[in-house]
């Protein structure tokens, strides 16, 4: 019965596979769900969902798939109805109870139950009409009229699982960005480099053995400094305007980069269209640092990663500004600011979210001559990282000449 539910989940993007199916089958065989839809909901959720971002999707799929199962729930109550009939035969009931039982015709009850289940859209506790718990309706659990149909308890509280799914309390945890962050993180990992610095506190086994051997077996312990991450990155991002469609992609890259622990230093800056003397600390283009300051503060070995579509009106590359981004006739052109950056950093790349086919024309081609340009995809990022770790970037240097 739950296989179609699996395909429903897959259709909605929860990647469940044979492993999950077997696990769920095993759990059901072991009776973990207590033969109830409610139990099934909890068990299925524990086994099929692997991240809180999928809980909401799961709830939706559950709701969509099992809404129809209210009729299956009624099948379940068949058992209860037959119990109701049996109950009349029972002798341990008080005469009053028997009388009350007589009051309910099983067919009538069944009809009413089906009808009410159809009408009922939410969980119900207390009250006299709806199916739920603690009420005085003839349908429910822990309720007053014992002669009613007991729907729930350990038997199968079919109202509840659907209600819980219906509440969709995990909507806030949805995060469709989650797809590729790991891939991006793995690509960025290649960008690490280690250097041995600091206090020598790690045992160098090879050196110790050779030193001991040279020392005629007299133990000679050699220590060395532990390897520490030594990659420093400056990340600059184009915001606003034509970059808006790519905002989510870029923010994903930024979040991955800022979470990466293998960078010794990571500086992130923002600019709009082209760098005009100043790199800003926030996407709203406030705060920040001027290019001359940045060049003075960080060394040539920092890796510069520019992110932007490099598309703008051609004149925008020629706007002359001073280091604070103010228009000045005697200032430096936008393109020249970019060249300053490209020249200072030995290793630099430009990541472009636009498809590479469009890079041959306009401002993209011009900037492509300043910075080596790579596509902002997982593969492109991998290539860019390779380029960053390989060594000098002759193209950037030659562009200036």
């Amino acid at each position, binding site marked *: 019965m739950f296989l179609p539910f699996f395909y429903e989940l897959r259709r909605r993007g929860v*990647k469940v*596979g044979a*492993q*999950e199916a077997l*696990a769920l089958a*095993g*759990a059901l065989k*072991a009776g*973990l*769900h207590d033969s109830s839809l*409610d*139990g099934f909901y*909890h*068990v299925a*959720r*524990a*086994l099929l*969902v*692997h*991240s*809180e971002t999928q*809980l909401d999707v799961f709830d939706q799929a559950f709701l969509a798939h099992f809404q129809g199962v209210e009729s299956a729930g009624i099948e379940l109550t068949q058992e209860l109805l037959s119990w109701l009939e049996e109950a009349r035969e029972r002798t341990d009931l008080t005469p009053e109870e028997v009388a009350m039982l007589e009051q309910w015709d099983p067919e009538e009850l069944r009809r009413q139950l089906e009808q009410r289940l159809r009408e009922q859209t939410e969980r119900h506790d207390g009250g006299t009409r709806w199916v739920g718990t603690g009420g005085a309706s003839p349908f429910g659990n822990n309720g007053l009229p014992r002669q009613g149909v007991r729907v729930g308890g350990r038997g199968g509280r079919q109202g509840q699982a659907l209600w819980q799914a219906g509440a969709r*309390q*995990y909507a806030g*945890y949805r995060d469709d960005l*989650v797809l590729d*962050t*790991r891939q991006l*993180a*793995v690509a960025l*990992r290649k960008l690490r480099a280690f250097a041995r610095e600091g206090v020598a506190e790690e*045992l160098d*086994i090879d050196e*110790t053995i050779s030193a*001991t051997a040279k020392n005629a077996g*007299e*133990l000679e*312990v050699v220590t060395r400094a532990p390897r520490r991450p030594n990659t420093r990155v400056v990340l600059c991002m184009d915001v606003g305007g034509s970059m808006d469609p790519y905002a989510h992609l870029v923010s994903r890259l930024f979040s991955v980069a800022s*979470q990466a*622990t293998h960078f010794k230093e990571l500086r992130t800056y923002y600019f709009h269209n082209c760098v005009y003397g100043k790199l800003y600390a926030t996407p709203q283009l406030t705060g920040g640092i001027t290019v001359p300051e940045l060049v003075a503060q960080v060394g040539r070995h920092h890796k510069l990663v520019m992110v932007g579509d490099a598309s703008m009106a051609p004149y925008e590359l020629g706007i002359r500004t001073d280091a604070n981004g103010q228009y000045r006739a005697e200032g430096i052109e936008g393109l020249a600011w970019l060249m300053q950056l490209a020249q200072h950093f030995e290793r630099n790349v430009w990541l472009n979210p636009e498809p590479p086919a469009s890079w041959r024309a306009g401002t993209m081609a011009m900037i492509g001559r300043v910075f080596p340009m790579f596509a902002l995809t997982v593969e492109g990022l991998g290539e860019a990282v390779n380029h960053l770790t390989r060594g000098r970037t002759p193209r950037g240097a030659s562009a200036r000449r």
Partner: protein
Amino acid sequence: MTQAPAPIRFKGTDTYLTNESLQAAVNCALTLQRPLLVKGEPGTGKTLLAEAIAESLGHRLLTWHVKSTTRAQDGLYVYDTVQRLYDSRFGDGDVRDIRRYIRMGPLGEAFSSPERVVLLIDEVDKADLEFPNDLLHELDRMRFRVSETNDDVAAKHRPVVVITSNNEKELPDAFLRRCVFHFIDFPDTELMKRIVGVHHPGLDESLSEQALKVFYELRTLTRLRKRPSTSELIDWIAVLKANGVSSLKLDEGLPFMGALLKKEQDLVAVAEAFGRGRRTRA
């Protein structure tokens, strides 16, 4: 038909309150013998869950605190080269017996334990990205080989493995697929009242009511960098009790805010929101 003996069901303990979905997840993990991956906001009792499971099942608890430098190998065993070198020089014991210099890590200890244990792998997301992948085989098969001695360490009783994550890093799919997952919700007011009751029995009704009100009020403040969580509430109430505070008001400078809010910006934000701009220091 021979049925396996009914597995023990986890129902929570006196001091650890659970709900149905958490119990279902724990029981799934127990029955299917898969690791249980627990996520949730900090302070919702992820780590305590392992203690509660160990307590309710009567098993020993082994803890492996994962740090950013932890390697998967550390959990299995460590070959103590230094000690062996040292012994070879100064002649203590039999240096030829490598087994003397193999120290089991938490995972190795759990596997080689004669009785079933609960193994907590705490904050698995702190470690390197590849860390969970390196443990896949060991957690799947519950065995590993000590390459120095060619010994096979296999679990006599598959340990109950509880893994917690604070979501600092994405975990690989292959790893997730092998786990039973549970996300601990932030407790609602009712549950929180019971939790407070468990930790501070006999607490003045009105104080607990007011403290909870303040607490949930603070959590709704979106400006906070770090929202207070259960453990901070428990601490705060302890401080209030110890200092004989009997009534609280949200608009005054709240006493001992430092127990609830851990960032200076947050203290300022709260002071601005409720204290009419008056700055309070905790």
